[in-house]
Structures are given as structure tokens and as C-alpha cells.
């Protein structure tokens, strides 16, 4: 059974159709990235799945529960999921360890507090007040609170926005560790390289519809799209689009008698493909 199963999800705000019929199937253990420009229906979709918003139509099963479940069933459901929201700045007067310990008390089978602190790399900040943490440290605390309950499913909403490159790499390593524990992860992100580094599959959402679901390597026909070979011939830069770049390079190599001046073989990046798919709309 899939951890996330969504059929025909629709949501409207007044006259605005934010989500116009989204289907998703995410099996256990997968890291799935949802990509899309602002206003594409990405946040609405995820917030409906997280149980924060109601829906107008569609069927949803998350670990066998409907996110609109209330009462004790809702507690049982939330006991099995973890949510890392965008920008929270609460509990500034508590220390890191106090907060992680306190949240661990909410769940039936929490992870070991020290293990989680080590996993997110906050051991040295354990006695620090939260308000004194840097942005990256705060975000790692958010993740600590998201995974403390040993969730089977983790929602990560734009987890590395505002990170410096080094912090992002460290964060990706943390997510790789979670992959090792079998946690299913639904990730939303603005960063295409992040989706490429982490996700098993990506979905592109635009205008409230899923345009495509695929692996990062194959999205938008990327794997089969033509490569562009470029080189310098005298004073001119020449390019050639081809399905067989190796043959082109071999031919050029013979032509130049060895080294080809300024040779480059370029395949479209995930970002190129993505921008083409969403019609060049990018923030």
C-alpha cells in the first residue's frame, strides 16, 4: 500500500482554483519532490495532505488515514507523521534540548533525544536558547522536531531556503541518513539541484495540475533530449545538436587531429527542463 494516495484533489479559494485535480501515489521509503512556482498550488496541496486545510473534492489516504480525521484517530495519525514547516520562530525562550525533549513526550515511540541531536548536528548547541540560534541551526532544530517521533512519513517544506551552500550540503546528508531509516519523505523545494540530489521522483505542478511525474534524470524527456556539442573553429564558436554526441566528438577529433578547441557537451539541466515545463515562469 502506498504511504500517500491522492485522487482528484481539488481546492478553490473563492473564484481561484488553486488545485484542479491532483493525483499522487507515493510508495513507502520514497523521497518525492514536489516542484512548482509560487501560486502553482504546491503549498495548498501539501497543507491539505498535512491536515491543515480542508479540500473541496478528491480522495486522500495518508498511511491509511484521511487528513481531515479528528479526535483520537487524528492523534494516532499525527503520531506517525512528522512535519517541518516553513519559517517557524517560536519558543525562543527555551533551550534546544528542552524543546526536543518536550516534543519527544508527544509521541508513543520517540527517537532517542541524544541520537536526534547528533543526527541534526546540534549537540554543541543543546544548552543554547533557541532565539540565539542561527537560521541554519533553527532549521536543523525544525527537522529535529519533525523526526523526533520516528515518523513513517516526513513532510519537508522548503527546508533549505536561506541556507549557505555548505549548510545545504550538510542538510542533504541528513536527509540521506533519513532515507537509510526507510522514512518516506515528501519534499517541496524551489531548488532544482536539491530535488536532483535528494529525490527518487519529482512531480511538477503548475496552475493547480500535475504536469509530469518522473525521475529527476528523465523529467521532461531530459534523458533522451539532444545534447549540444560546442567547439571553437578558428574565430568562430560552433554548436551542433545531436542524439549521438560521442560520434560528433570522434568526428571533430579526427578533423582537428587530436584536441578539439574549447570542447563542451551540454545536456539540459533539470532547471532548463523545469523552466520550459512551467512556461518560463520562475520567481
Amino acid at each position, binding site marked *: 500500500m502506498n504511504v500517500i494516495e491522492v485522487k482528484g484533489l481539488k481546492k478553490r479559494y473563492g473564484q481561484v482554483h488553486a488545485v484542479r485535480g491532483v493525483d499522487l501515489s507515493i510508495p513507502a521509503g520514497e523521497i518525492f519532490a514536489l516542484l512548482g512556482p509560487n501560486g502553482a498550488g504546491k503549498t495548498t496541496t501539501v497543507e491539505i495532505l498535512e491536515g491543515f486545510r480542508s479540500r473541496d473534492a478528491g480522495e486522500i489516504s495518508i498511511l491509511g488515514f484521511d487528513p481531515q480525521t479528528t479526535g483520537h484517530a487524528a492523534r494516532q495519525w499525527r503520531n506517525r507523521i512528522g512535519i517541518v514547516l516553513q519559517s517557524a520562530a517560536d519558543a525562543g525562550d527555551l533551550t534546544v534540548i528542552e524543546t526536543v525533549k518536550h516534543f519527544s513526550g508527544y*509521541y508513543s515511540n520517540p527517537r532517542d533525544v541524544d541520537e536526534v541531536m547528533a543526527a541534526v548536528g546540534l549537540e554543541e548547541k543543546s544548552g543554547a536558547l533557541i532565539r540565539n540560534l542561527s537560521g541554519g541551526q533553527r532549521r536543523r532544530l525544525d527537522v529535529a522536531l519533525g523526526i523526533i517521533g520516528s515518523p513513517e512519513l516526513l513532510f519537508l517544506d522548503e527546508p533549505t531556503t536561506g541556507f549557505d551552500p555548505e549548510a545545504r550540503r550538510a542538510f542533504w546528508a541528513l536527509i540521506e541518513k533519513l532515507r537509510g531509516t526507510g522514512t518516506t519523505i515528501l519534499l517541496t523545494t524551489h531548488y532544482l539541484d536539491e530535488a536532483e540530489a535528494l529525490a527518487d521522483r519529482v512531480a511538477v505542478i503548475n496552475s493547480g495540475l500535475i504536469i509530469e511525474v518522473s525521475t529527476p534524470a528523465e523529467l521532461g524527456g531530459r534523458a533522451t533530449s539532444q545534447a549540444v556539442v560546442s567547439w571553437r573553429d578558428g574565430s568562430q564558436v560552433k554548436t551542433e545538436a545531436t542524439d549521438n554526441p560521442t560520434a560528433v566528438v570522434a568526428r571533430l577529433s579526427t578533423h582537428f587531429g587530436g584536441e578539439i578547441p574549447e570542447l563542451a557537451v551540454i545536456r539540459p539541466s533539470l532547471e532548463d527542463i523545469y523552466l520550459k515545463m512551467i512556461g518560463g515562469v520562475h520567481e
Partner: protein
Amino acid sequence: MNKIPSALNLGIRRGGLEIRQFARQRESVVFTLLFPVILLAIFGSVFKDTIAPGVTFSQYFVAGMIASGLVNTGFQSLAITIPMERDVGGLKRLRGTPMPASSYFIGKAILIAVSMIIQIALLFGFGLLFFGVEMPTEASKWLTFTWLVLLGSACSTALGIAFSIVPKSGRGASAVVSPIVIILQFFSGVFFVFTQLPTWMQQLAAIFPLKWLTQGMRSVFLPDSFAAQEVAKSWETGRTFLILVIWLVIGTFFSVRKFKWDRD
């Protein structure tokens, strides 16, 4: 699989966490806990007369200060701090965990009750030492005092949580909430002798719980002979209890049904 912790268990833990967070905001601790004492000092120094044979204004004012302390500590502080917690995403984070809303409410109730007990202790201490405030001697009055504090604190907590849905942001919350509380204090006979207020003001105040809390506290701290000077010529203890219970039910209903975890 272990069982999920009970709502009450989590509520008590939340209470501990709330107290810890509150205690770390030093300015706010000093201000909240000492505010009634400061007001008592000011009013006690300005009004030195007796308002009835054997009843000093300080004595009258202590009753009002405890009652309005309940409103300030519960209703006012929650109706302002909850929207602030909502603004920074703290409530949404909690909503995403298995902790139920009832635990969050219990935690707030514990914080308010503890804060109230400290305020009352300070008010009694300063009142006894510096302003000649007399403590009741009959057990029945202390019994009334106890249920008034407990019921008043619960009622004020519930209404504060319920009213937290009104301010759109934490920034604007105090501008919405504070005037309501101050006007209510003037109308309810906290700063002035209630029977000297215009009738329409008295009638308006009688809708809200503060007037009844204040009157209830007067029944504890003033001699029974003073009851004859109340509007109804009696302490109306039964009616006070009933009205506070009604407001507690209203507050709890809206807290449970309408509580807002998220800004939009």
C-alpha cells in the same frame, strides 16, 4: 507500539513548559506579578478615606485588584500572547503533532493559575505589611475565596483563549484587547465604588464576569454589613457562581470550536 500519552498528562507537561517560558521573560514576570501591588500602592496612598464604617479604600481596592488580576492574567495576557504565538508559527507546529488542543489549553490554565497564586500572595503580603489590609477570619469566606479564584481563573483562561481568535495579528492584539479590559475595570467597580457609578454603566458591567468577580471578592474582604450597600442589597453569591459558570461554558465552547492555529 506504546500508547500515545494522555491529554491530561501532556497538559501538565505543557503547563511546566509554559511556566518555564514565562519565567524567562523577566520584564514580563516582574510587571505581571507586581502590577496589582503597584496599583494598590498608588490607590492606597491617594485615597486614604474610609468608604464605610471600618472599610478603608485599600480594603475595597484589594478585592477589586484580585478580581481584575484574574482578568489581566488570564483573559488579557492570553488574548495577546496566543496571537503572537500564532504569528511565529508556534501554534501550527503544535497542530502538526499528536498533542491535542485540550493539552494546550490545560497548559495555559496551569500557567494562569500559578501566576495568579503568586500575584495574590504578593498582594496579601504588601497589603498586610504596608496598607493595613485585613484578612477574613471565617472559614466560609476562605471557601468562597478559593472557588472564586479557581472558577475565575478558569473562566478568564477560557475567555482569553476564545478571544485570541479576534486579533488578526500579535502586533495588533494589545490594541484590541487592552482597551476592553480597562473599560471593563472602570465599569465593574475595580477603581471606583461600584454603586457610585451611573446606572447604565452598572447594568452594562453586570453582563460581564469582572463585575461579579469583584463583587464576590468584596464578599470575602469586606464585612457582611457592607452587603447592604451593594446594588442588590446582598452579595448575590449564588448568582455570581452561576454567571461565572455560564461565561466559562461560553469561553470553553468557542475555544474548542473556533481556536485558530494558523494565521489565515
